[in-house]
């Protein structure tokens, strides 16, 4: 079975690189982007299974990025990362087709569980 392809979108590069490395250690194929435009570019070329998307990123609003990804390929599952417990944004995200959300700081076990579930959902769809 091929590795699950994960795109990590977060403007905190330190966070993104550490988390990416941890996910790689767990056999995920991980790429990261620090803004919306870069993320959409990678979505096009890399075709990830799951996108971990921070809701607050420079360039474009997180929700709009989510909509753009879903528009490009509705089977790509998006897990929202939120650092500030903004209930309204999470609600908007879920309505716009996000699979799940997870609060920062992230528990790696919970995250991998959610990625796997998202990946399974994509496989079946």
């Amino acid at each position, binding site marked *: 079975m091929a590795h699950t392809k994960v795109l990590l979108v977060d403007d905190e590069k*330190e*966070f993104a690189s*550490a988390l990416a490395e*941890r996910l790689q*250690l767990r056999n995920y194929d991980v790429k990261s982007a620090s803004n919306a435009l870069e993320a959409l570019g990678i979505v096009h070329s890399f075709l990830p299974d799951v996108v971990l998307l921070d809701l607050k990123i*420079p360039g474009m609003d997180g929700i709009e990025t989510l909509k753009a990804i879903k528009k490009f390929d509705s089977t790509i599952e998006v897990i929202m990362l939120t*650092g500030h417990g903004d209930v309204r944004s999470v609600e908007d995200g879920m309505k716009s087709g996000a699979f799940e959300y997870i609060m920062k*700081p992230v528990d790696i076990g919970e995250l991998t569980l959610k990625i796997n579930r998202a990946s399974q959902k994509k496989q079946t769809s």
Partner: protein
Amino acid sequence: MKNMKQKFSNLLRDIFHPREIFRVLGKDRYASLKIRIVLLDVLLSMIPLFIVITISYFWFQKILKDDFHKQLNWEIQNTKQTIEFFVDERLSVLRFITSSYTYEQLSDQKILTETFARFKKEFGGLVDFGIIDSSGIQRSYTGPYNLAGKDYSTQEWFQEVIIRSYYVSDAFTGYRKIPHFAVAIKREVPEKGTFWILRATINIDTLQKYVNTVNLRSNDDIFIINREGILQTPSKFHGDVLEKYTAPVTIPRQEILIQELQTSGDDCKICGFATIKHSPWILVTVIRSTPYARIPSIFRNELFFITMGSILLGLIFTIVMANTVVNRIKLSDQDREKAVGQSEHASKMASIGRLAAGVAHEINNPLAIINEKAGLMKDILEVSGNTPDNKDKFLSLISGIAESVNRCRTITHRLLGFSRRMEISQDAIDMNDAIQEVIGFLEKEILYRNIRLELNLQENLPKVITDKGQVQQVFLNIINNAIDALKKNGLINVTTYAKDDKFIGIAIKDNGSGIPKENLKHIFEPFYSTKEKGEGTGLGLSISYGIVQKLGGTILVESEINKGTTFSVELPLKSEGD
């Protein structure tokens, strides 16, 4: 003792440097309000009081004057009647003699001398008696001079007595140069178709005694003149008997005439003229003193005490009233300040709530980094064990963790600083630093909303002695509003500049949708908000306005629809606020 000395020296300073008092009054607006109320009230109430007092003063003076005129008239009348009685009495006596004795009897020197002696005893001042026949020749005479045989036929008085049957002469000096006057009575002898005359001479001193009965002040004068103005009795100021009285004389048509003359100098102020019946005389009264002009001291004292009493009462009432009013104002001001203070506190709390969300987000990020780096270290240890190869990797991860901890520390310090600055303080602050700190709170928000921030901070900006916390709250409010007003691709420009050597200015400009004119005039009003319910307290700008005013500065807003809004705050280098 030391305290007393201090008080005394303060009193001296106040007396010699009254400006100090005004300086203190100028500072204490309640005291100056009190003084203004008292002055205005005293002025308003004292003007009618003084008008009433002045009117009653003059009214009373007029009454006194009228009274004085009446009194004078009465006295002149009295004197006139006394003198007329005197003249009439002399005429009656002569008439009695002429009817009691015949011409022949009185032509007898002896009988005439006896009669003269008898009457001289009764009536002082008699000088002589003479009997004159119808041809004007003095037939007999008794007296100090040798006038028997003197011919009076050509004299004016002789003609007069023939016509009127009595005669009273002007004053004249006889041989001894003693002034006297003559009285004559004609006695008809119808059976012989002839007449004779009894003539008596009387010393003028006798008349003077009657004139002197009037009670006058030392400045006043009373005397008798004849119709030619020749003095018949001596005058205090116009000379002796037979001298000319030079002042104008008005012969009264009625019995008495009182004239008031507005002349300066020694001339009379009030002149009374009265004709004496059966004589050629005019009684003249000259009043130079004006006793009515000096309101009697009793009345003056009463008036003074009433005035002073009214002023004192008015002043006490005014002061008590001003005190009550100003104290009420002071209390309501204090209440208002308290209410403003409370709403300021509410606004601070609202700002803090807003900050807390931002801070939670900001702290979450470094926490997430620490979490991931620590997790990665654990992962590496679990996968490959503690090998020397991992040392560099670990060091880099640890320094990343330390850096994130520093980030957290900066945030917590900033937050602590903000809460500490809620206490009022006065520090010399660099406005550029203060603004950078405020922007530090908001930069994530600015970044996420994709807002461009331009800073034109003037270098070497003079330091401002003011309350940093309050100033920062103002900028936090204004920049927050700007962020809320901006959509995508917004621009916020913050400019600082030294306006002059007393003020510095801070302009915060956005290119948002602008504020409609009808809203612009309300934006500094408390609880005015155009944000959705629950989004804003409506207090931010009103409190900012209050703070800037309190710090002695100004806050201005200019806005144009679809072009943006500029808030300009100007602050004094030395804040006047407390």
